[in-house]
Each structure stands twice: as structure tokens, then as C-alpha cells.
């Protein structure tokens, strides 16, 4: 796990951004990623319920990486601006990609014998979610923002 401030010369004055990178290779990494997201959220003042939503989302996405792609990476980006605090979860892998994203987002759809509720849950628990996928690369971004 590495933590580093992302330098952004344009708005370095108004923005304070921290990125935490967690490689996803084994089951324990799901726990590590979960703890990082919770910690990052707590550090910028998110409440218990939001911390729980974020940790749950990270858990779903990290497990999907282990199940469907083998390995990947989780990035937890936390931003603090004068008006809002936000967390962006970025999950990236170089696995086979998601065949049909519309299907995958439907509750109950699973190619792995799961409940098929992981991706729909991410969509419901976060404010925004985007998926970029093709064979060889999948990037899922999900964010949550709160006014300060």
C-alpha cells in the first residue's frame, strides 16, 4: 500500500488530494482495501454509514477482480475542497473484461454462481459509477461526495 499526494498544479491551492493504492492479489487484499477506504473516508470526515457503504463497495469490486480477473489494483482517491469532501474508488484489472455491461448491472445476473448483486449494489450505494471494459482492461470508478 502506498500513499501519495497527487500534485495538480492548476488547483493545488484549493485542492488536497490523497491516493492510496492497494494491489488485489489474494483474499486478504479485500480486507486491506476495505480498511483503506474506511480509513480514507474517516480521515476526511465521512460518517459511519458512508464509511460502511464505501467499504462494502470496495469489498464487492475487489472480490469481482479476484473472481473474474485474477489480480488487479484498487485506488482510493480522497479529495478535500473548500466546498466538499469526496472519495473515488478506482478498480482496475487486466482480465477478460465484462461481456455485456447492461446484463452485468442487472440484479441477479452472475456468470460465477453468485447472487449477481455486487455491481447493482455499487450503483445503489454510490453517487456515481462508471465502467470502462474491454478484453484486457476493466476500470470501474465509483464516487461519493458530501458537502462540507
Amino acid at each position: 500500500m502506498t500513499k501519495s499526494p497527487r500534485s495538480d498544479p492548476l488547483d493545488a491551492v484549493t485542492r488536497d488530494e490523497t491516493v492510496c493504492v492497494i494491489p488485489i492479489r489474494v483474499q486478504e487484499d479485500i480486507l486491506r482495501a476495505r480498511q483503506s477506504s474506511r480509513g480514507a473516508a474517516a480521515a476526511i470526515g465521512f460518517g459511519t454509514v458512508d464509511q460502511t457503504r464505501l467499504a462494502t463497495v470496495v469489498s464487492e469490486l475487489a472480490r469481482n477482480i479476484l473472481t473474474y480477473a485474477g489480480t488487479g489494483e484498487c485506488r482510493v482517491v480522497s479529495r478535500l475542497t473548500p466546498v466538499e469532501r469526496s472519495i473515488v474508488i478506482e478498480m482496475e484489472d487486466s482480465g477478460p473484461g465484462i461481456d455485456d455491461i447492461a446484463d452485468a448491472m442487472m440484479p441477479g445476473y452472475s456468470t460465477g454462481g453468485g447472487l449477481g448483486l455486487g455491481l447493482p449494489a455499487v450503483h445503489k450505494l454510490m453517487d456515481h459509477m462508471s465502467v470502462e471494459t474491454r478484453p484486457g482492461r476493466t476500470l470501474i470508478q465509483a464516487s461519493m461526495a458530501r458537502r462540507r
Partner: protein
Amino acid sequence: MRVPILRLGRVLLTSLPSDLTDQQVMDLQIDALALIQAGKADGLVIDITAADVVDSYMARMLSETAKMVTIMGGIAVLAGMRPAVALTLVEMGQNMIHMETAFDLEGGVAKVARLVASRGGRHDEVPTV
């Protein structure tokens, strides 16, 4: 490391740690079912006070374990869910948890005792006349 299962009379008790791996959840299911099958208990109370995340995998494993215990003639109760976890599960949609629940460990044990009594003991026990 396997999650320990304690026995209090004819009820099995287990407290899930917050940092539980998928493998540990699976082992716990196997261990609990083996103890019930061996006739050592009528029920199981799973305390999740320490669990700060219950995701779809965990929800599925818990519900599945409860279903197996029920089919075998026992009762499984989930106890002590944190409010934030309950709220998150509700927001995730669907009915994620399909099992008996109680506020805490004590309530869980009482629920097992009550449900076992109302059914007249273990299914495989011939009532003594």
C-alpha cells in the same frame, strides 16, 4: 485460523471477527454443520457485532448456512448486526439476509431455545412418552 465455535448447552455460539476472509467464512460453515450433524447442538447463533461490512458474498454464505442448518432440523440465528450494516444491506436491495435474526447474542440464544421448544425438540429425537 478458523473462527472458534463455542457450545452453551445445546446451542453453538460464534462471534465473527471484523477481518474475516472468504475462506474463513467457508470453514465456519463446514464446522458448524458438522457439529449440528453430530448431534451436539440444536441451533447456532452467529454474532456479527464486530462485522463492519456484510457484502453480497457474506450475505449469501450466512443465508446459505442458515438454510442448511434448517434443512438438517436445527435453527440458525444472526445476532448483533450494526445499524450501519443493516442500512447498507437494505440499500443494496433485494432481501439479502434470509435467516432468523436477534438484537444480540443473548436474544439469539433465547430465540433458538424458543424455536426449538415450539417445534418439540430435534426432529430426529423420538419424544419420550
